[in-house]
């Protein structure tokens, strides 16, 4: 969600123009499907996580292959998150700090959190969540004076098509609900996850749409598409008289908190699925080797922001939807056909 706020508005607005906010809302639809699949799979294998039930469903070899693919996927998601964030920091905030230092910080904090376990990450997220919501609301409220509703018009100018195309890059944002495939057995009340997951998705969709709407209403569609991180400029826009200016720094800091938690979660997922696929008892020995992958990968994978954006725009939607929609769907399908169910975990 955090990453969505930073980058997506720009990507989406290029194509969908004034109706970009609808596009963002639309993009959440596939993720509900994803949630449903994950939930169904979770019901079939209440005690197993994704890397475990792929082996049950697809057999040992193929299961390991898919499990390995998911490891790579989580790895990539996390590398992208780290990249994205350090990129953003260097562009907007600390131009002179080398990216590798920022990456190192993010990875180290992630490693520390993973060492403490998923429960700790979840609690930290819970602690931060209200701060996050409040900061967003404050942001929305404080830019209200600058809003011009007219910039949203004409409504659906180019028909529905560009809207749908525009929604594609943001699908992956919501698709991150796939993490539940691994976290589901660790949740205290799994039966509530369907409702809560849907609720969470809806909240994210509403907030993203709202964010997009505000960005559009202030900068207009052309500028929003051109700005690198429109939301950031949105927060820069806040000004209460002459005494309270440039609150964007504080809001940025809050975003950073959210980002760190996201990185920690995916870090955990990578370590966890690696350990499961390799048949290790604990994921803890994997943590530090993983850091050695993350750090150089995040630093050297993309040479600059443009390349990064290109990747997000051209390849990521397809890659993301394979792992977030297609593969889980296949898994569910095979599971139903082969009638694999409720195997008690080893």
């Amino acid at each position, binding site marked *: 969600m955090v990453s969505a706020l930073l980058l997506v508005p720009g990507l989406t607005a290029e194509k969908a123009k004034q109706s970009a906010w609808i596009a963002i809302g639309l993009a959440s639809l596939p993720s509900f499907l994803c949630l449903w699949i994950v939930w169904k799979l979770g019901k079939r294998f209440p005690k197993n996580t994704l890397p475990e039930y792929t082996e049950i469903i697809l057999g040992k070899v193929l299961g390991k292959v898919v499990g390995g693919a998911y490891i790579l996927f989580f790895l990539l998601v996390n590398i992208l998150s780290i990249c994205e964030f350090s990129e953003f920091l260097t562009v907007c905030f600390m131009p002179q700090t080398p990216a590798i230092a*920022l990456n190192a910080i993010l990875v180290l904090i992630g490693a*520390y959190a993973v060492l*403490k376990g998923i*429960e700790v990450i979840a*609690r930290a997220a*819970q*602690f931060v969540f209200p701060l996050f919501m409040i900061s967003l609301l404050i942001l929305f409220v404080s830019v209200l004076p600058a809003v011009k509703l007219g910039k949203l018009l004409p409504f659906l100018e180019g028909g529905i098509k560009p809207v749908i195309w525009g929604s594609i890059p943001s699908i992956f944002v919501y698709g991150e609900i796939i993490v539940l495939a691994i976290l589901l057995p660790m949740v205290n009340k799994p039966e509530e996850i369907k409702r809560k997951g849907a609720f969470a998705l809806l909240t994210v969709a509403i907030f993203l749409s709202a964010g997009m709407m505000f960005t559009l209403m202030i900068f207009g569609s052309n500028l929003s598409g051109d700005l690198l991180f429109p939301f950031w400029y949105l927060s820069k826009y806040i000004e209460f008289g002459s005494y309270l200016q440039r609150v964007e720094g504080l809001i940025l800091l809050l975003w*950073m908190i959210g980002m*760190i938690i996201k990185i920690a979660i995916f870090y955990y997922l990578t370590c966890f699925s690696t350990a499961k696929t390799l048949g290790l008892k604990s994921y803890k020995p994997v943590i530090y080797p993983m850091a050695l992958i993350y750090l150089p990968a995040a630093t050297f994978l993309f040479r600059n922001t443009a390349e990064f954006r290109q990747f997000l725009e051209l390849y990521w939607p397809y890659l993301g939807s394979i792992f977030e929609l297609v593969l889980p769907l296949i898994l569910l399908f095979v599971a139903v056909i082969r009638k694999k169910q409720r195997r008690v975990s080893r």
Partner: protein
Amino acid sequence: MFKRLLKSALGFSGKKGSGKTTSRQPIEKRPLSADYDNNLQTLRQVFNQCFDILFREFFINADMPLRAFIVYVTGLTNHEMVNDHLLKSIMQETANLPSSVHLSKANVQQVIQERLINLDETSTTTDLIELVQKVLEGNTVLILDGSSTAIIAGVRGVEGRAIDEPDSEPGVRGPKDGFVEALNTNMSLIRRRIKTSRLKAETFETGLLTKTKLAVCYIKGIANDKVVQEVKQRIGRINIDSVLSSNQIEELIMDEAFSLFPLVQYTERPDKAAASLLEGRVVILVDNSPMPLIVPVTFISLLQAAEDYYNNAVFATSVRLLRFIALNIALLLPALTVAAFSFHQELLPTALISTVAGARQGLPLPIVLEILMIEFAFELLREAGVRLPKTIGQAISTVGGLVIGQAAVNAGLVSPISVIVVATTAIASFTIPNYAAGTALRILRFVLIILAGFFGGVGIISGLMVILFHLCSLRSFGIPYLSPIAPLSPGDLKDTMVRAPWWAMLTRPWMSGGNEPVRQDPDQGPQKPDKGGQTP
């Protein structure tokens, strides 16, 4: 033989080499002998060269005079009681025994204990080791001729501090009594407030040499049984030679070995201890320590002062809010200043940045070092102030105020802004009610300043996130440290950042493990008078 006896009686196991293993073995029993002289000699040998232990030999008036002696520690005994209720009654009242009772060597022990000693607290023992222990605890022990059973009379009279105002946690409106060193007095201060037999206090003894008494207090049915069990188990595990303060117990029963944050709370206020008991927590009283321990602890409870409950709820809530802001200032303000001045000048309003730039012109040090330097000077002053006698303390504050305040600025070493920042931070840090939590903030503040000096805002957030993850991972006796915020238990939020009025405190905190969740009847809030009942 005596040497061995002496060793075991004192709990010693001799020289260091063998000490490690034998000190863990329970001390075996040694029965008293029936021979009077033998007993006397043994005890004299045990208490050899202890000037404060007195032996008094006397005769019991009977048909055939019987010898007897008492042994006690002078400083721990109430001499009047020994004279009036022990010596006098035994030596003189034998004449007034009813004629049916015949005092003889065979029944003397029974008759004396049942008919002559007019004290409420007596017991007997046949074990020499226990006898020695009882003497050292301040009891007077009576040994009779021909009896291998000693009578222990509780006539303790220890000089102690009077119940005084709690110095470390003063209050305006709350009760003004504070815990003292004596365990029994402390227990009475709690018992006075909670008059139910469900308030249990189980005693333990720790410290091979100090034999310090601990009392684990909890309210049965309200306290979480698991927590109580865990406390007892952890205290039972303690095996050290001495316990001189409750902090030793604290460090031995903590969940995490190295955490800056206090996982065990202490208080000097009996009302706070009582309130904690009623919330379902466990209070551990330690003899000779005026600071009982409270477990489990949550981070929020460290920010609460007893006084919050004695003031108007709205006011108390505002004060808590203030304290929370102060917490953030104490932790973050210097670090934020460093980050803003050295990395993110663009975030400061234009007017402010020009003022700051003007003030900082010509200063020799970068802002990080400057703030670190003043913080360091301040910590020096604080430490000096704590250690010095009160009379010299004033001199310190004058010198300190002049040196770090006035002179350093005038000499052009530091900017007035840094001084303001550090001073504000210092004042804010004094608002944290729990001293131990304050020390954690002091250390973390320095860490954050250094991080801010290297990475600016990113460094601060990184530091904060590590702290947050650390806090989330902490548990105090199984209770998550950040509860009730994370994990969230919405019902308990009424007594966290806000302090709900008493009529709204319907349920007990989740900490109690769901025992007796309801605290009081609902609908006790202030109500408007019935319409019919209005006076004309």
